[in-house]
């Protein structure tokens, strides 16, 4: 029995040595007496703290700790362990050379048979690396929160069950819905009632079946405003905690729509400016156009008064002629004013309609023929079928023609040989209108600039430089084109407009 006990003891000592060897590979250990002084330390602790065995003996345990941990040890740890309670937690240490390191430590009180504490065992693992990873993580998390709250895009996060758990500041600002209202499925109530079911269905399909979606829908804000968003949502499997979450990103489209509105408004202003400019250029001619008939009206009216005063019934025929003349003249004025009104109107939202080329020309000439005539410019029109039609917005086409005629006027006004010729070609699917003037060819280097906005050869103050660019935009809008005929001996613009609605397949 003695031999086997010896064997056991020998084995036990061997086992303890082995254990000690293993512990020394990864843990700091120390023994502390009830006064808080170190009475033993293992090789790992000595190595990491930089002290010798004799240096450390009977030194206070706190001399291994940082100032902060030392205070914490005195106030929070010591009162527990002296009562026989085990303490676990993290401590920060300062080595002899000033290097700081962290440990995750356990301090176990050892009790005697009378349940009195006799000493403490300290065992700890170094966790400096983990602490720096934690700091980096905290930094990342701070950065993420900061970023999220400043991102101009709505961000929405839901847990595994599809319940909202996070929204960023932009989301709150866009929707007017706070986190409290958005939690779980509360956010659905913030969506416009007409869109709610559609969004709910898509969301449930994402949560239940993992179908990502991209949708445009509206929020109805508490202040009554409606906000359009473009949302894309997807399922994300987080690698860190193996949980599935759902992320939705929402782009506020109101801004895009308002910038579209702004562009439209600016376009309308430009068109109006260009129109008013041509109108200004035509004003003299128009005044003449209206003055002439007015003079006739005055003359005839005076004549009638004179005849009536004379009471001569035989002058009845003359009276009739005068009255007829007044009627036709007023009609002429009315027609000019109609054309003016038609020209001045904003026509960008008008529907496209089959429009008679003849009536289009009549309207245009009504406004400018007089001006050409008064400047001695020969304005002629080639023949074409009376019933020829193009598919257009007549007000816009009106402006195109007026613009081109105005340019032609300006180009030939100072020449000796002044003429402008309009001709119309029926090309089956298209109609081409040629505006040719007696001016010389436009220099090659100007060809490209010609259709750019604000390009003008006219003196500053007369003309906006927008006429051709707008005319070209209108022609393209109609599915046609406007270009300079570079082959022609004279200046010739060609405006090509379709006769029928464009088949949508052709436009692609």
């Amino acid at each position: 029995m003695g031999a086997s006990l010896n064997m056991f003891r020998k084995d036990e000592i061997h086992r303890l040595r082995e254990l000690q060897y293993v512990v020394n590979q990864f843990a700091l250990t120390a023994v502390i007496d009830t006064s808080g002084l170190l009475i033993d330390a293992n090789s790992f602790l000595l190595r990491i703290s930089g002290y010798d065995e004799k240096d450390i003996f009977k030194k206070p345990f706190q001399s291994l700790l940082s100032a902060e941990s030392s205070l914490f040890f005195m106030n929070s740890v010591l009162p527990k362990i002296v009562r026989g309670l085990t303490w676990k937690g993290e401590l920060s240490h300062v080595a002899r050379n000033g290097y700081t390191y962290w440990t995750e430590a356990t301090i176990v009180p050892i009790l005697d048979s009378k349940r009195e504490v006799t000493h403490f065992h300290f065992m700890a693992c170094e966790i400096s690396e983990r602490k720096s990873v934690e700091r980096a993580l905290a930094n990342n998390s701070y950065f993420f929160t900061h970023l999220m709250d400043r991102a101009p895009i709505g961000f929405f996060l839901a847990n595994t069950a599809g319940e909202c758990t996070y929204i960023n500041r932009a989301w709150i600002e866009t929707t007017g819905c706070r986190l409290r209202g958005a939690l779980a499925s509360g956010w659905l109530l913030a969506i416009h009632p007409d869109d709610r079911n559609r969004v709910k269905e898509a969301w449930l399909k994402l949560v239940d079946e993992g179908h990502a979606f991209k949708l445009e829908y509206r929020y109805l804000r508490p202040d009554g405003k409606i906000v359009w968003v473009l949302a894309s949502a997807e399922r994300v499997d987080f690698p860190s905690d193996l949980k599935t979450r759902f992320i939705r990103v929402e782009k506020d489209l109101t801004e895009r729509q308002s910038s579209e509105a702004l562009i439209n408004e600016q376009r309308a202003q430009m068109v109006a400016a260009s129109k008013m400019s041509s109108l200004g250029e035509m004003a003299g001619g128009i005044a003449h156009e209206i003055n002439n008939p007015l003079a006739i009206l005055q003359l005839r009216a005076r004549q009638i008064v004179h005849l009536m005063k004379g009471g001569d019934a035989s002058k009845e025929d003359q009276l009739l002629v005068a009255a007829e003349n007044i009627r036709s003249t007023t009609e002429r004025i009315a027609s000019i004013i109609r054309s003016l009104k038609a020209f001045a109107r904003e026509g960008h939202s008008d529907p496209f309609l089959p429009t008679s080329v003849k009536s289009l020309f009549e309207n245009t000439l009504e406004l400018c023929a007089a001006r050409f005539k008064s400047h001695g410019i020969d304005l002629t029109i080639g023949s074409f079928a009376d019933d020829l039609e193009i598919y257009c917005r007549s007000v816009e086409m009106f402006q195109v023609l007026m613009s081109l005629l105005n340019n032609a006027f300006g180009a030939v006004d100072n020449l000796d040989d002044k003429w402008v010729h309009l001709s119309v070609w029926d090309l089956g699917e298209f109609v081409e209108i040629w505006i040719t003037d007696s001016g010389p060819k436009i220099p090659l280097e100007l060809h490209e600039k010609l259709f750019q906005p604000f390009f003008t050869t006219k003196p500053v103050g007369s003309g906006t430089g927008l006429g051709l660019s707008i005319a070209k935009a209108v022609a393209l809008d109609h599915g046609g084109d406007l270009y300079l005929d570079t082959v022609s001996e004279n200046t010739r613009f060609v405006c090509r407009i379709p006769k029928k609605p464009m088949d949508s397949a052709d436009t692609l």
Partner: protein
Amino acid sequence: MNIIERNNVKIRGAGKQTLILAHGYGCDQNIWQRIIPELEENYELLLFDHVGAGQSDLSRYSRSKYGTLHGYADDLIEIAQRLEIRPGIFIGHSVSAIIGLLAALKAPEHFSKLILIAPSPCYYNEGDYEGGFSYQDICEMLKGMESNYESWARAMAPVIMGTPDKPELGEELTRIFCGNKPEIAKHFAQVTFLSDHRHDVQDFDLPTLILQCTEDKIAPESVGRFLQQSMRKAELHMLKAQGHCPHVSAPMETAAAIRKYLNKSS
């Protein structure tokens, strides 16, 4: 960053006033189930789990942050800030009563009134103060817990519930305790039972209702009286309910006391 997920925050009920319900040691928000029907018709209820409990994010548990009750109080303030509760009525059970009080001291703008169910600022006797346990008793209890959490839970849960006439409630609490992660439960127990916040309750001046049970082994009547005398605007309401968890064992009586207090003071 995701506080809602961290604390498994839920909002239910309808009403202009928000009641923030904070569960006590070893439980989670499900402990309020019996009393919720009594309150949710008239109040908005904010429910959550402390980190380390229930469906909270256990990976966020850190011994240093939750080494004192201030760690939990900071979480509560963050929840109230995030959800823009200005102010709410705080209802805390047991250790959460003190957590709510610490939060209200730090961020009073989020709290208008406090209702403390079976609160205790210090569980052990010291001088004239009768906490209910000797310090040695607490240490022994914690040591027992350290060596075997589950047997501790089986022994202690029925005592905490304190309803020998309804043993099923004690069993229910045992099941809840046994569902906890032992390492966290042991640490939270140390933090709870060794805490001493008597100086924090001195001159506390938000309107407070203290609901004191009879035969409460954890927070005896002497503790309720101490609190009422220490605080400036505290009312002490004695419940007929026995034990330490009246919201579980006597939800109707508890809810009635809460409603009466809120109706009277509003």
